């Protein structure tokens, strides 16, 4: 280190680092493909190669229940791996339109290098319905690296998992990693002996429980204790009943995944008892689509009240926001800005476009502000 420091001081004019051969070749390739990039051509032949945007190819879709399926994906070469419990954001084209959603990875790292997500088709769920019923092996999907803090602490201990509906998926990922299933049955790995796990799984009714067979098998093998609660049979779970269902609740750390209402109730319950709780919730609160609303601009910090008949462009300009524009009639696309969050209505067709944080690519869904009116509260990246 001191040597480099010395040479730096003594050299009268530090030269720019010499370009490497690789760097030069890259530059040459860029010159040869301008205005595109070499990657635009390489993608034609190998979209999963190292250095490409992260993508994956669906290799298998197998049904879990009547309305849920596991989708196995071969990720691109740059996939960095994941920790069980983490989720992945995946972009799929539904009716030709790119949609992004987050799904838990439902397994530990697999020997074949593939990843899998388990999806439950929810009513009106554009992407989940498409994945369960419409996705085909061979389809290319877009990925981001795995993310999420909702992972099983290493080193063992006593845990309670509370899962509701498809909230079971990240937990299944953790459990499968601990207790792999082989042809001969569930394998008991040495590292798994340090864990004592109870799973309280809640679902509307029995047949809708994804992975319930997995959980039952683990329970039967004595690896976990399963408490299955079905709303139609046992009534909706009251968090105060947890003490009865899990007598040693106080000794356990809880990991919960499910809808916001359940998580809030659990949080209050655990806080009052001073118990540790780690939660994960996927779905952002549902978007309210209405007539007009506030439009917030992230750059200027301005918030504008716009009615349902005024183009956002006009409303913003009236409030002094500098807006890009052109024809002001929906044909030139000179006014396009990313809608980060919220809903807008096309004043020509009445079509509503929505953006939910985490479900779009980049800064948001691009919308034409000159023909879009607010359909509820909106956040525009500008």
């Amino acid at each position: 280190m001191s040597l480099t420091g010395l040479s730096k001081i003594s050299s009268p004019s530090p030269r720019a680092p010499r370009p490497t051969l690789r760097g030069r070749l890259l530059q040459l390739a860029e010159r040869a493909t301008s205005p595109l990039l070499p990657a635009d051509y390489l993608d034609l032949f190998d979209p999963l190669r190292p250095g490409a945007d992260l993508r994956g190819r669906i290799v298998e879709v197998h049904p879990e229940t009547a309305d849920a399926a596991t989708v196995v994906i071969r990720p691109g070469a740059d996939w960095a791996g994941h920790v069980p419990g983490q989720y992945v954001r995946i972009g799929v084209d539904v009716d030709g339109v790119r949609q992004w959603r987050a799904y838990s990875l439902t397994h530990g790292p697999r020997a074949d290098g593939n990843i899998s997500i388990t999806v439950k088709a929810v009513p009106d769920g554009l992407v989940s319905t498409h994945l369960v019923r419409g996705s085909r092996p061979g389809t290319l999907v877009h990925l981001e690296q795995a993310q999420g803090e909702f992972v099983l602490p290493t080193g063992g201990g006593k845990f309670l998992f509370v899962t509701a509906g498809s909230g079971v998926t990240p937990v299944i990922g953790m459990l499968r990693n601990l207790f792999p299933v082989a042809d001969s049955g569930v394998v008991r790995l040495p590292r798994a002996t340090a864990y004592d796990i109870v799973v309280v799984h809640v679902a509307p009714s029995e047949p809708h429980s994804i992975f319930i067979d997995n959980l039952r098998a683990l329970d039967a093998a004595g690896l976990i204790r399963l408490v299955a609660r079905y709303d139609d049979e046992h009534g909706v779970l009251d968090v105060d009943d947890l003490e009865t269902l899990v007598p040693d609740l106080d000794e356990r750390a809880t990991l919960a995944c499910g809808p916001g209402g359940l998580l809030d109730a659990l949080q209050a319950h655990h806080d009052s008892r001073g118990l540790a709780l780690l939660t994960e919730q996927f779905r952002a609160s549902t978007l309210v689509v209405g007539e007009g609303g506030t439009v917030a601009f992230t750059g200027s910090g301005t918030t504008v009240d716009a009615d349902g008949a005024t183009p956002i462009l006009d409303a913003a300009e009236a409030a002094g926001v500098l807006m890009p524009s052109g024809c002001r009639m929906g044909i030139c696309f000179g006014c396009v800005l990313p809608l980060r969050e919220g809903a807008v209505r096309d004043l020509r067709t009445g079509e509503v476009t929505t953006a939910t944080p985490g479900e779009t690519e980049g800064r948001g869904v691009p919308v034409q502000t000159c023909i879009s009116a607010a359909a509820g509260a909106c956040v525009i990246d500008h």
Partner: protein
Amino acid sequence: MTVLQKKTHNPIGHLTPEDIEQIGVELDAIRQSVIDTRGAADAAYIRKVIATQRKLELGSRAVLLVSMFPPAWVVGTAGLAVAKIIENMEIGHNVMHGQWDWMRDPKIHSTTWEWDNASPSEQWKHSHNELHHTYTNVIGKDNDLGYGIMRVDEDQRWVPLYAAQPLWNFVNACFFEYGIAAYDLELGKNLATKERRQDPDFRARATVTLKKIRNQMTKDYVIHPLLSGPSFLSTLGANATANLIRNLWTHSVIMCGHFPEGVETFERRSIVGETRGEWYLRQMLGSANISGSKAMHFMTGNLSFQIEHHLFPDLPSNRYQEIAPQVQDLFRRYGLTYTTGSLPRQVASAWKKVFRLSLPNGALRRGRGATVTDLPTAPAREHAAA
């Protein structure tokens, strides 16, 4: 008033304001029918076109590595010319119109696309999408009309300079991509005074354009010829030829869109207070189609459906063909002329007009036209006032 070329009658004089609004309603319904059925098949179409175009370009450039062999030169040049035409027309032009923005694919989006042409996308989008498509055929507002160097209408005062406009037009055709870049920069206007020349905004835009041109030239006239080694000169010639073919072709197609006889031009005043129906009507009267084979439509980037494109500039180009019969039927029902003709006919017609207008009015009087003064009053303005 709307200036009508060589016509003794007003082509829309028979329409009531209600008719015009009804035309708007019917066109909106056609547009909606496409939007309702836009989906995976359309997305697959544009992706396939892009993939095929890129493979064709790669293949052609690979063949040109040995361009000193004449068959390789011919095949490679033809392939590259076709690839460049597809890239500019069916892909670039249409993507930059936002026709594929609905897919939300950041790689095929009007805000990110950069095309294989001298003019940077950003500037082209402004002059084309915003000025040309909004002010279609409005003299003095739509730069596509004569690109500021030509006389396109009897009402424009004749000056001797226009006598050479057939030559300008030919030179512009050969170097069309630079012509486009020049008028996207509004070079004529911006170089005129010292103040404009030094305008920082103009300078910044000019820098971007020069950089784009340098990159384009480096690619076609330095890098690929160098990669061809001993075939350096013949590859350089091949690339220049491919660019020339592309320029001539795109210029011809674009001239056919708004220049043949039968296409109306409009005065600046006539579009004040235009309704949606009137806007549609101006697009209908200000555009001309080209009839021909499927391959011809594809190679024009479906600009052979210029009328449909001008009515619905943001609908995917692959759908123009299917709505054309409905649009044509609407023209018929409302007694309007759907201007169309084969490519050679329309090119000849446009060139004829270039020659005719290079001379003062009446110099080539053939007895079938009206003089400018007895032309009817602008229909669009009449209705706007009504």
